[in-house]
């Protein structure tokens, strides 16, 4: 935690140049999305399932943050291009998180339903974002590894209650079985504020 010698400057634009990308277009949205959560909860697996349809059971520890993008089409013929920052869950990167979540329109906070410790860590991230994230950020709470029902430590109701209290969207997913992965991103897309659309 205390080891980052160059804490990002809060006033700088950070890794967010989306606002400069021309006039906002209500039909073709580009959003910056950041995934946060403890290490090993499956953030990268969720992203790779969503972006590439792949699942790799061998754990690959993310270093710093990976950048990927994926565009989805909604039923109302709008497209949403997600520019995804998949951050490393390791403690040493915690101090650098603002670099990745600053300016993000969406934050997906992930925990592992088989680890109550990771649920505690998720709550830390929610508080951190409430303090330092964009005020209108869309937040989703995701309980991953839903296929491992037998080793569940965090009841779904706990997730639902916590999400509701904090105005978040909640879903349980399994990157392994692909369960609810696309639903997660579609639901996020629906909840995005539509810029300059006359009737939204």
């Amino acid at each position, binding site marked *: 935690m205390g080891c980052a010698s160059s804490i990002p400057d809060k006033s700088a634009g950070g890794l967010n140049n989306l606002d400069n990308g021309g006039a906002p277009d209500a039909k073709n949205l580009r959003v910056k999305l950041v995934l946060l959560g403890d290490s090993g909860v499956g953030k990268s697996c969720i992203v790779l399932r969503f972006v590439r349809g792949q699942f790799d059971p061998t754990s690959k520890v993310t*270093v710093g943050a990976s950048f990927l993008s994926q565009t989805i089409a909604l039923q109302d013929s709008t497209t949403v291009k997600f520019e995804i920052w998949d951050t490393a869950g390791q403690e040493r990167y915690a101090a650098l998180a603002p*670099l990745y979540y600053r300016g993000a329109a969406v934050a997906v906070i992930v925990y592992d339903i088989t680890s109550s410790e990771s649920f505690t860590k998720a709550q830390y991230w929610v508080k951190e974002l409430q303090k330092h994230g964009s005020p209108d950020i869309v937040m989703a709470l995701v309980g991953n590894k839903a296929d491992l029902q037998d080793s569940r430590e965090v009841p779904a109701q706990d997730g639902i209650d916590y999400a509701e209290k904090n105005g978040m969207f909640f879903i349980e997913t399994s990157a392994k079985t692909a369960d609810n992965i696309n639903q997660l991103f579609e639901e996020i897309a629906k909840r995005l504020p539509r810029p300059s659309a006359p009737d939204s």
Partner: protein
Amino acid sequence: MSSSSSSISSDDEPNSNPKPVDDELSLASVTLNESNGNGSINVNENENNRQDGGEIAWGRKNSEVEVEALSSPSSSGYAGERGSSSETTNSRIEDDEIQQVNNDDGFVDGVNHSRASPWVPGKRHVDEDDASISWRKRKKHFFILSHSGKPIYSRYGDEHKLAGFSATLQAIISFVENGGDRVKLVRAGNHQVVFLVKGPIYLVCISCTEEPYESLKGQLELIYGQMILILTKSVNRCFEKNPKFDMTPLLGGTDVVFSSLIHSFSWNPATFLHAYTCLPLAYATRQAAGAILQDVADSGVLFALLMCKNKVISLVGAQKASLHPDDMLLLSNFVMSSESFRTSECFSPICLPRYNPMAFLYAYVHYFDDDTYLMLLTTSSDAFYHLKDCRIRVETVLLKSNVLSEVQRSLLEGGMRVEDLPLDPLPRSSISHRMSQQRLLTDSPERFRESSVGIGGPAGLWNFIYRSIYLDQYVSSEISSPINSHQQQKRLYRAYQKLYSSMHEKGIGPHRTQFRRDENYVLLCWVTPDFELYAAFDPLADKALAIKTCNRVCQWVKDVENEIFLQGASPFSCATDKAEFAALMLESYL
């Protein structure tokens, strides 16, 4: 030494070398050096004279303390031919080298079985701790611990279970420090315990590989550098605030980085040469890559590196910034060992310990294919999108100028091979020498026959490494028959390391040439102000012919320098003219 007894049955232990376990941790003499003491460590006579610092007995159950139980040098197969002044002091090493071969390499009973499986990254034997016999039998341990004795990293076993062992190491270090001194090396039977203190971080290597002290210390330095690359030196502040600070969570997930670095000590000459190597490429191809890297460097990138595995394709630094070869080694090890870089483009804080150990830089990393990757380093934490644009520009140019396909071709073709060493312009003598060599071979004791069946290059040349001092670069010949397995490669590189440290030993050195013959090789080393040449020959190689061959190697390197070296990365690129001059002189030295 270790071959003398075998009280432990070697069931299915990974290490087939039967060895009394108790002797593993019974410490003998402690060598104490003042901080300005120079490296007399491997010279045993001196060591005995230096024992005024007293002895620490650190036996486990068995309190039998061995004091420098050394084998006699007379049994070594070392054949005279004294070409330099330093070799006599090291002659006993050869004895253990053979032992090492028998124990470690499975070399005697066949060449091939150690070739089998490729190295798999990651930590092994996590279930072990210092009570496990298998753990205590491991040939080479590395530990990082804090000054309060908390474990930070261990090559084998679970750090948390090694808390007691770490505390013991810490106790030894602070016991000596309390006496106003510093412990550098402890010998215990055939084990060496090497200590390195870096502020609140202690590093320890326990090894029975007979590598020189300077080599093991250099490896500890690199491990420390790798840790700094991940965390920066400002981690020291955590210890100022709380001396009992537990650092392991900060290094979470980095086991692969350290284990891959430790593995590279046995296959990557950059770890002891402190130089980098380039992928062989046509001059124009490398120029094309360099031009586009220069282009992006001019747009505010501190360093731009294009690499293929551990080899450099091209690199550019902004203005006067220059990259230390050790930083390049640690950075490429970090990137190559962390699988996540291959998945997508990444942006990560990293620290270059030789450039600035206190501050993070930000690295943009992108793989173009399985082996080739681009690293763009910047001081600005929000430069990601700019670097991404730079990468797209670089990629476009590399594709258009076929650099990436040339890289793949070079990777397939490999580098310099000893068999391809151009023939002497005057081939008169080579045939007759070859024949006398054959005769020698049949007369020789049978124990050497199997190691001599390989083909190799002319005059029995098996391998060489040429290091250009001015360029900070080296080129090594491809590992080829009769050096067939990873184990044999490891043994060769350890022999080079011994050679390297004996040539660079403070106090006695520096030396210009060394010619040594043992059961495994003829080794020839030649150091000039411009380059260093390390060559390994068949153990029965003819000395005069070996010298001649080394001159030809130097000439060959000069002939192809535009393809094997990155030229112009340093202001002193006229070095090879001097090399040619020097090449004519080797005969006169030996």
